[in-house]
């Protein structure tokens, strides 16, 4: 199956090679929402084709149609020039399509081998399949730099290796076309680079790759052609060499956007937040934070960089009063705060700590709540929202919601819609409006622009900087290095529960931060 006589790269040979994927007039709607509108797209064989677009632009729907999760309302799909009905994922696999989902579809207590053969067993007995898979895996590992221990338990592997298992699963099923949905979201820069090398190797062997991402840098680095989606439509398909990140961003949003954040020099004042030897152990006895210390001043944004799961979440939750610490001390404006189990988020808010949580769907918002209920969430016991006899002052809550909707340009503007009916960007604006307008001294911000459209990112960044300029302290946790570099006045990098290094954005770059994030210490001390 790995035989391919074609030369790699953009071969403009006259030989009439049918494109790997051809979509003609594909449409799909969910109720009143048109997720895909008359989409036509061609992906050349042996190419890496990027698809970019904001959240909700229809990228995932399109790929789900290609992989047989949804059936298109109209249009046709040709695979290698042959019209193909993809009714379910079995049909997709039979057509040579493999998919690496954003959230892995792996059985964690199973070994790599068991995961790989799952659903592709040859007979009722496992042994022959496992033996065959072991051979194939050894071969694939050599060919593509895809080394994984076949007998390792998947749950014990790092995220980067788990992703390789997903790719191996697709290749074991003899996929010629590989779709990757946001593959680098959970990877360190080094792991991402390795992934890209794997993709280049796959391409060299004639595989076709479709890469869905919202990171323009990746598109520029690795793709041959790129398609831009906006509001369910394919707005452009261009050779990557002939475009630029800012042009792509404009195409995604439909207007000119500033990718660079404009901000003045910081004017740091007194120390507002003082963290000393903070440690935390989870209920399984795993050390999540190992004696962390740092200071945060008024008028300053301190960025916390790191791959997800290296203690940043625990740091935010301890400071936000959600979970207890096991040791250490935290002072706000010089006064210690309660780090025991008795602490609560309500007490933190009284002490002037606001919190934009990393997960707005599960924490920051109550999804079925209407906006006027969500804009008071966590502050609902404040005197202005309280009526007599335990009643809520719903009039005041509503008036307050209307104010925030206006000031933060939350759309749609009705205060009576449940949070679930807003776009990611507008949901995040509800959270940010609530936390900023309650005038905290210290604002904890986790992943402020995750799943947020580019237009709203610009707005949210401006709000965070405005808060800094008004003399507040901001602790910014983000896995997006670009965001950390653009917003922070100082940067600390977390790895495995310790602060691996501290830098200023002027004196560092993504490479150096990436090494710190991977637990290495470039050029000595920090």
């Amino acid at each position, binding site marked *: 199956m790995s035989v391919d006589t074609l030369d790699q790269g953009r071969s403009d040979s006259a030989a009439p090679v049918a494109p790997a994927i051809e979509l003609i007039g594909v449409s799909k709607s969910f109720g009143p929402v048109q997720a895909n509108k008359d989409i036509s797209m061609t992906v050349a064989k042996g190419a890496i084709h990027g698809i970019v677009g904001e959240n909700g632009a229809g990228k995932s729907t399109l790929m789900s149609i290609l992989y047989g999760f949804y059936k298109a309302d109209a249009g046709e799909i040709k695979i290698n020039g042959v019209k193909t009905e993809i009714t379910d994922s079995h049909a997709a696999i039979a057509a040579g399509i493999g998919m690496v989902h954003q959230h892995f579809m792996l059985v964690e207590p199973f070994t790599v081998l068991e995961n790989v053969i799952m659903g592709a067993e040859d007979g009722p007995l496992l042994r022959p399949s496992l033996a065959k898979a072991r051979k194939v895996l050894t071969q694939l590992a050599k060919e593509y730099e895809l080394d994984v221990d076949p007998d390792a338990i998947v749950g014990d592997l790092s995220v980067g290796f788990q992703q390789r298992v997903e790719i191996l699963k697709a290749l074991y099923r003899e996929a010629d076309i590989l779709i990757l949905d946001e593959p680098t979201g959970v990877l360190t820069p080094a792991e991402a680079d390795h992934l890209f090398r794997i993709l280049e190797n796959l391409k060299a062997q004639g595989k076709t790759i479709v890469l869905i991402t919202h990171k323009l840098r990746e598109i520029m680095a690795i793709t041959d052609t790129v398609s831009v989606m906006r509001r369910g439509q394919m707005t452009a398909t261009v050779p990557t060499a002939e475009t630029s990140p800012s042009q792509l961003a404009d195409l995604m949003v439909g207007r000119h956007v500033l990718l660079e954040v404009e901000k003045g020099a910081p004017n740091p004042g007194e120390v507002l937040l003082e963290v000393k030897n903070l440690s935390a152990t989870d209920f399984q006895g795993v050390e999540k934070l190992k004696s962390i210390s740092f200071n945060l001043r008024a008028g300053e944004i301190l960025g916390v960089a790191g791959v997800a799961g290296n203690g940043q979440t625990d740091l935010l939750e301890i400071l936000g009063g*959600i979970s207890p610490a096991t040791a250490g001390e935290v002072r706000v404006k010089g006064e210690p705060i309660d780090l025991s189990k008795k602490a609560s988020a309500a007490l933190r808010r009284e002490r002037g700590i606001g919190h934009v949580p990393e997960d707005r769907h599960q924490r920051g918002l109550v999804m079925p709540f209407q906006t006027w209920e969500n804009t008071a969430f966590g502050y609902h016991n404040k005197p202005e929202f309280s009526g007599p006899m335990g009643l809520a002052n719903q009039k005041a809550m509503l008036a307050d919601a209307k104010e925030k909707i206006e000031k933060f340009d939350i759309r749609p503007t009705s205060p009576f819609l449940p949070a679930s009916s807003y776009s990611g960007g507008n949901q995040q604006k509800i959270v940010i409006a609530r936390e900023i307008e309650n005038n905290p001294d210290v604002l904890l911000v986790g992943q402020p622009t995750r799943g947020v459209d580019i237009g709203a990112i610009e707005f949210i960044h401006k709000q965070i900087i405005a808060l800094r300029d008004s003399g507040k302290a901001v602790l910014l946790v983000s896995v997006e290095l670009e965001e950390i570099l653009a917003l922070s006045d100082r940067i600390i990098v977390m790895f495995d529960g310790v602060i691996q290094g501290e830098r200023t954005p002027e004196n560092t770059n993504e490479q150096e931060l990436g090494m710190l994030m991977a637990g290495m210490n470039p050029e000595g001390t920090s």
Partner: protein
Amino acid sequence: MNKGLPKWADVLLIPVLSLLLALFVSGLVVLFIGRDPIEAVKVMVQGAFGKYGIGYTLYYTTNFIFTGLAVAVAFHARLFNIGGEGQAGLGGVGVALVLLSFNWPNWVVALIAASIGAAIFGAAWAAIPAYLQAKRGSHIVITTIMFNLIGSALINYLLVGPMQAPGMVPETPGFPEAAALPTLHDVFAVFGIAFDKNAPANVSIFIALAALVFVYILIWKTRIGYEIRAFGHSEKAAVYAGISPLKITMIAMLVSGALAGLMAINTVMGEAERLVLDSVQGAGFVGIAVALMGRSHPVGVLLAAFLFGILYQGGGELSFAMGIPREMIVVIQALVIMFTGSLENIVRMPVEKLFLRFNKGGA
């Protein structure tokens, strides 16, 4: 997900269609045992709404309002209180202890005291599973079921032991005469309206109606209600907002248990006027169906409780008048619970599709 569905269809059309479907299948069951389903409907309606029946229908409705509300309140905190049966039973113990401890001069004072006793005992019986859930993560469905059994055994013991009236019958002595609640016959007589004298429906129904209003205000107008709903939708979000899961679990279950316990003023104080074995008679479980069908909203609970009141009374009439065995009536009631509760999607999905097509055609 149900974006295509207008609210009236969601709260009205789907339950009504589910109900019709359940009645249709019930009709098949009646046909199957060789009786006339049309005749059966007639008997049921007459049995439930007739001169003698309505007083029983309203009596059952009162029970189901209390137990339905109990399940509904807990459900807003995403706690599945299956323990209404036990909590209502213990409520009866509370009523009996209060009424037997003192020679009550008149029924108003007795009713207030008995209500407090019923509520406290019901709440206490819910408090233990609630605490175990909040502190130890013991699943409340399991613990409340177990507490139904424990409660039933406890009441058996009390009725053949410490609280037993002289004699061989497992029941308490009768309550003081003056503590007897006025029946609806007495109430309506004041206004000159005739009402069956023997029907058990009594003034407790007004307490049930007040409880409906209370629950509405509690859940939608108070800060505690806001916290209960937030916790019910997402515990993680509640913790983020500084809402204590322990506090909300306890409050929701205490209110829930108190409401279930209050049912005893209707049955134990209003009807039997003594505590007897099995005074709850499954009303605790019917409350689950009532809350599900009523969407945990007081208005829905009222309508669903009335429907189940009709089914209970009409069903009893059915076995009496047509000789349909009692077990078959239970089958019919179970069908209604099944179709309106757990099988709701059978109706929901086609209706949603229909609305989508209709909306598209209109657009």
